């Protein structure tokens, strides 16, 4: 059977990228961003009932669109699709990383692909620092003199980079080195303004997991070319995680808290076992394998799906089912069970969006623009949550002021208006081909 025509509805030149842009991938990314936007809101308006507080009230929004532990903070926690959010995002990032890495190393060179991968690593760490600083200054909106100096230095370096990027380095491949320099300097300059220790900033936050895992994905892509062998690395990491987690469980009261005191009084006072980075890397490696199976390893994409992706999809669900008995899925520590379940759902979405695109020739109108500006949408949602934070901390705060049917209607508006606004922004930016990406 011939390969179906792939819908690349804009040429890659319009996206300033070396590889084609797949509509199904944008849609996949878009649906994850959509769930993310709702999850931020359901988090903001969570119930207090599950916490056992006497003033417990129902939350706003569907319960299954919030984290399981926000519903009832029990052990083992109940797992919702939102608990898999960061892992699903990791999977999509892994696919994008593999497409981008393969294309760059083929068209320009391995060095270029690697520098690009490292730039993305530092850029993700920098975004993590920015969100931390944002939440630090949020309560009183006060900046110290040191903060101001750091931010001004960063603005100077960023301006200089942009000028160099559009003048001297416009047509040169060395521009990627400029981006690397900028991302490294950004991390160094912003680091002193963050109050948490090195472990927390660089190893224990969602964006840090994404950064490390995408870096390791690139490493394994270079090291093991054959995806059929590379997938073993993913399962090796699962095995390491399971072993370490089991040991930690027997030694300490809470499995995720296996920490060591290193240099008290310094930014390296406490470090821990990077459980989440291990399994995020396993997810990212799986994603690179899925990407290669689909786009690289077989003469037709359908062959790759049939011979590798779908059998792997069934296998990973069985793997999840078995492992969950030993170590139940948890959101706060991405166990092998949660990682496997996330891979299962990520592949489910992938095959569905792929089929919609290439078989049904259908698409969700608003998902593509959301997916193309995923990073920007992620940053923008912080703005409305910032304003909501002034008024309400949880569902109890909200429902006390707006009880009954009126409260439900206003709650619906509070959910739909910002999401609709973000979709409009994404749509307009897409029309003008403006994208924020690493």
């Amino acid at each position: 059977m011939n390969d179906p025509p792939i819908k690349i509805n804009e040429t890659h030149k319009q996206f300033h990228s070396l590889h084609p842009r797949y509509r199904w991938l944008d849609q996949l990314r878009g649906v994850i961003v959509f769930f993310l936007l709702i999850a931020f809101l359901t988090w903001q308006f969570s119930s207090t009932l599950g916490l056992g507080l006497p003033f417990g009230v129902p939350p706003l929004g569907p319960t299954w669109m919030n984290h399981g532990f926000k519903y009832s903070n029990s052990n083992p926690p109940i797992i919702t699709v939102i608990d898999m959010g960061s892992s699903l995002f990791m999977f999509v990032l892994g696919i994008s990383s593999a497409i981008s890495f393969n294309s760059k190393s083929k068209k320009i060179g391995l060095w270029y692909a690697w520098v690009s991968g490292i730039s993305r690593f530092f850029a993700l760490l920098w975004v993590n620092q920015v969100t931390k600083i944002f939440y630090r200054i949020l309560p009183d909106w006060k900046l110290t003199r040191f903060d101001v100096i750091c931010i001004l230095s960063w603005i100077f370096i960023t301006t200089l980079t942009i000028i160099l990027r559009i003048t001297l380095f416009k047509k040169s491949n060395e521009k990627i080195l400029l981006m690397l320099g900028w991302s490294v300097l950004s991390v160094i300059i912003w680091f002193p303004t963050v109050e948490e220790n090195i472990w927390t900033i660089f190893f224990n936050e969602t964006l840090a997991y994404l950064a490390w895992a995408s870096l390791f994905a690139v490493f394994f892509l270079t090291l093991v070319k054959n995806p059929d062998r590379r997938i073993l690395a993913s399962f090796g990491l699962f095995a390491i995680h399971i072993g370490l987690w089991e040991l930690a469980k027997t030694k300490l009261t809470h499995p995720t808290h296996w920490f060591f005191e290193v240099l008290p009084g310094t930014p390296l006072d406490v470090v821990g076992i990077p459980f989440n980075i291990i399994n995020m890397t396993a997810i990212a490696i799986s994603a690179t394998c899925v990407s290669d199976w689909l786009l690289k390893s077989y003469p037709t994409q359908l062959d790759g799906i049939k011979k590798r992706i779908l059998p792997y999809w069934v296998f990973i669900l069985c793997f999840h089912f078995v492992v969950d008995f030993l170590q139940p899925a948890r959101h706060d520590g991405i166990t092998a069970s949660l990682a496997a379940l996330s891979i299962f759902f990520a592949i489910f979405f992938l095959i569905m969006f792929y089929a919609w695109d290439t078989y049904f020739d259908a698409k969700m109108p608003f998902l593509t623009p959301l997916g193309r500006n995923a990073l920007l949408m992620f940053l923008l949602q912080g703005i409305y949550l910032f304003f909501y934070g002034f008024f309400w901390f949880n569902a109890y705060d909200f429902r006390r002021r707006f009880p009954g049917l009126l409260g439900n209607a206003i709650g619906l508006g509070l959910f739909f208006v910002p999401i609709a606004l973000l979709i409009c922004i994404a749509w307009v930016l897409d029309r003008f081909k403006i994208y924020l990406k690493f």
Partner: protein
Amino acid sequence: MIPMDKRREIPSLKNQDSQLGSNFGPNLEFSWIYQFQGMLLLFLMVVSLTWIFSAEVRAGEFPIGPTWLNFGFSYADFYPSMITLVDLGIQMFMFILGISLTISFKKYSQEKNHLYAWISVGTQFFVLLWLAELTQLDLDAFYWNDIVVLSIWLIFTISCAIFRNLKRFKSSKTGLLLGFIWSVGSVLLWFLKFDATIWILFFNHELALLAWGCLFAIVSLNLIKNPDRRIILPVILLCVHFLLWEVIGQWDTTLFSGTLLEFYIEIPYEIIGISIAAITATCVWEWIQLQTTSFKVGFKIRIIPLMVVTFIVHIMVDFFQPADQRVLNTSLTLLAIAFSSLVTMCFYVLEHYYKFNVRILNSLGKNALAIFLLQIVLTFPFRFIWESEGGNAFRIAVMNWLSLPDKTHIAVNLVCLTVFLLPIIFIILSARIMEKLHIHITI
């Protein structure tokens, strides 16, 4: 828009799926529907066990099995309920049953006659009610009169089976009529054994809900031929359910109190909810056939929009009436329709585009009724011993038996895993053997 007269040509089924065999009528088989049914049955097996081994997590107890493979209210019973895939299970089952029922009804109407098709639906209705009675059976309370009644049923069943296999009846309409008489007789005879109220047994049990859903689906199919118009019916029912729940809420009364005809009655919210899914399923099947040459068009211009709309409306309605599995309310029904459409599409795509299927699911789906009954038998010992105590008690028992310090010790977890896997493997093997022997026992 495709004109209605060009839409409904049953031969299109043959064009599309001609390589497939038959359970939905002569010369037809829809492997992807079996796959869907098989998946639901596999989940049913797992859910029966997670339900038995639930635990009171708020009290520090530890259940057995993945938490997302149990009912949300079984995990923590708060208002509003947590919704898991399992909570959508009955509506999803109704959805796929609605699709397969529509296929068989149309096939029988075309190839036999309308009466034949109706008798087959009637038989299905009464068989489901009889199954509801069967699963409600209380083995602790057997009296002489029960044994007499059940002996009569056994003789009646054997007689029907013998007559059904006589050459004279085997390939005639009388065979189907015999099946119908047996199902009605079984429902009546078994009813004599029960102390439960008519309402609980015939209007509130999950299998009874499926029976009513099937019946209403076929009634709607015959009343409104055009699926684009028929879809208005579930929309109206959604509004009715929403308004009744908003204005009246839970309401019940007893009719003819103090007489022989005393009858407990309540607003049949669950039947409304399940009928919405069933009627929508009939529309979905006809939309799939929107174009005679390819099912793709129907998916693209009807089913994908249906999925998106029901999903978005679910989110909106959930603000007013949070999804609740126990009353199959509007929000839950909308989510179930959205998810069922997605899964239907998924299995269709796996079969027709990716040319991929999981053989185990085929075997399970082809013997839906046999597997359903088998899972009841297999889980019965666990239900009998552990249902009242739950998973935590089982863990403690294993922990003490193995002299371990912790109920979540890896050895305890491995025993729990074995307890789950053994019946699942047994069911899968049974399904494979039945398929090899060409035995098909379906609803």
